[in-house]
């Protein structure tokens, strides 16, 4: 018999929490984006687990779409970081505070 679904859900909860705490305590925008990826992966793990538990392929399709959205999000996020970095000095979340308008 395979591992019970609640174990996967517990692991996903732990991963999500680590990602959320990372977003809250880190100041480097790049690392904050990585922590968002961590949370997305925790959600993906939950989707696949429920897909198995409920015997439904829809959960895996949802993960497929999450992957696409994550790729788009990273592209736009990194573009914004590069644009900010080109105009000012740093990549911490506090550096754009001097933006006006």
């Amino acid at each position: 018999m395979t591992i019970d679904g609640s174990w996967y859900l517990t692991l996903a909860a732990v991963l999500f929490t680590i990602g959320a705490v990372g977003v809250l305590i880190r100041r480097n925008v790049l690392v904050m984006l990585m922590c968002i990826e961590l949370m997305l992966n925790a959600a993906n793990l939950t989707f696949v687990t429920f897909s198995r538990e409920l015997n439904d392929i829809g959960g895996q399709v949802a993960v497929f779409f999450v992957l696409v959205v994550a790729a788009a999000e990273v592209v736009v996020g990194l573009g914004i970081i590069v644009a900010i970095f080109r105009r000012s000095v740093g990549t911490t979340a506090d550096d754009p505070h001097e933006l006006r308008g």
Partner: protein
Amino acid sequence: MSGPLLATVSLPDLATFLIAAAICVAGALGVVFGRNPVHAALSLVLTLFGVAVLFVEENAQFLAAVQIIVYTGAIVVLFLFVIMLLGVDRTERVLADQFRGQRFVATGLGALVLAEVLLLGTGHWTTGAHATTGALSRPLSNVAQLGRAIFTTYLLPFEITSALLVVAVVAAVVLARRFDAGVDDEAGTADPPADAPRKTEVGKR
């Protein structure tokens, strides 16, 4: 809870899950507490790989392959590329508070989130409808099944995904452009003295 569960689980499954879970958590902690952004990105690879192993364990082989190819092959490489491009691969103090008590508030909120999700995750959660879009137990491979679901039931979201990707590409191109009023890109970069007035102009906008 874990006592009767352990008796019914086969040893290879258990070992795979425990090792992959340990790899996942170690990588996640490395992302959060790594001082160097490059190390954080490499720790992210560790976590993504562990999640891919868990996908295989849960019979989602196609998603495991895509996880490796897209996440590890494209997204993390993109992260590393930007880190190297910006030259921010130096260490920083991870636990420096910007606001007073930021760490403690973050840890408290994290504990709250963990408790809530664990409460939800270990309760009676398999109460949803079974197999409304397609059962997993049909005699098809995982890839065939997923492809059939995407191109029939989920065709419209799939098409909208292409629009999303186009928007993302256009956004990346627009964001990466230099906005020089009246000066085209090559002249702007080849003319260093024009740099200072251009910057003030950009700042005014």
